[in-house]
């Protein structure tokens, strides 16, 4: 019962924040409501007993990515122009609505095979074993590290003053 209330509260906050990001006229406020949306998603992760992911979400999205976005909003000083829609407003609305309908239809009509076993808790040690242990995702971890290094170097090179 408590989980249900928490889910509905977080879902409403998350969807409302996402809607505010899209409909908000002020870019800076949109960035701030995006932070609220990230926090709601972190709460959803906790409900799904993914404690490590919730911490990662707070650290990387709320702590890192939102700072980057807010900094970019300040640097470009396009705030006074607001965030107007382009000519494709109605077709985009149509496409999004049709996509949502198709997704909801396929999700509700698929016979999911649910597992009855209890989730692993806490997940941190199990995740580390999964990613770094034998037969795990160690190659992907190394590739992700290289990707991050390349992306950061690329970002520095792109924004550097000539």
């Amino acid at each position, binding site marked *: 019962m408590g*989980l*249900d209330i928490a889910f509905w509260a977080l879902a409403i906050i*998350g969807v409302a924040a996402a809607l505010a*990001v*899209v409909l908000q006229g002020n*870019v800076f406020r*949109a*960035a701030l409501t*995006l932070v609220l*949306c*990230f926090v709601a*998603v972190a709460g*959803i*992760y906790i409900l*799904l*007993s*993914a404690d*490590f*992911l919730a911490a*990662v979400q707070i650290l*990387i*999205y709320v702590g*890192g*990515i939102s700072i980057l*976005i807010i900094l*970019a909003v300040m*640097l*470009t000083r*396009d705030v006074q*122009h607001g*965030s107007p*829609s*382009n000519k*494709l407003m109605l077709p*985009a*609305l149509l*496409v*999004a609505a049709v*996509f*949502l309908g198709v*997704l909801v239809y396929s*999700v509700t009509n698929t016979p*999911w095979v*649910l*597992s009855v*076993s209890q*989730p*692993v808790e806490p997940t941190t040690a199990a*995740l580390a074993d*999964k*990613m770094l242990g034998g037969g795990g995702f160690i190659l992907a971890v190394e590739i*992700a590290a290289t*990707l*991050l290094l*390349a*992306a*950061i170097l690329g*970002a520095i090179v*792109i*924004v550097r003053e000539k």
Partner: protein
Amino acid sequence: MPSVGLLHYLILSAVLFSIGLFGALSKRNAIVILMCLEIMLNAVNIAMVAFSRYIAPTLLTGQVFAIFIIVVAAAETAVGLAIIIAIYRRHDTIESDKINLLKW
């Protein structure tokens, strides 16, 4: 009202993804488009973790995927914002309609 299960999380994920899709298609400001992309990535992550929780709770594969998605999203945001700032320096605008040098 039925108790919250996999379907609820998947539909929440679908709703968030559609909101992000609508924003990414209909906004002019490149930074707002990037924000909507982040919403879409978060929606996909919710679906991944929900599958991990309800279909294979002991395997944790969905959570590993979500971590990699977060890594790629962080790299994408850094490079994307760098490109946007570089464009703003050169053209004094970040409206996606006006960035049309490569369009014919």
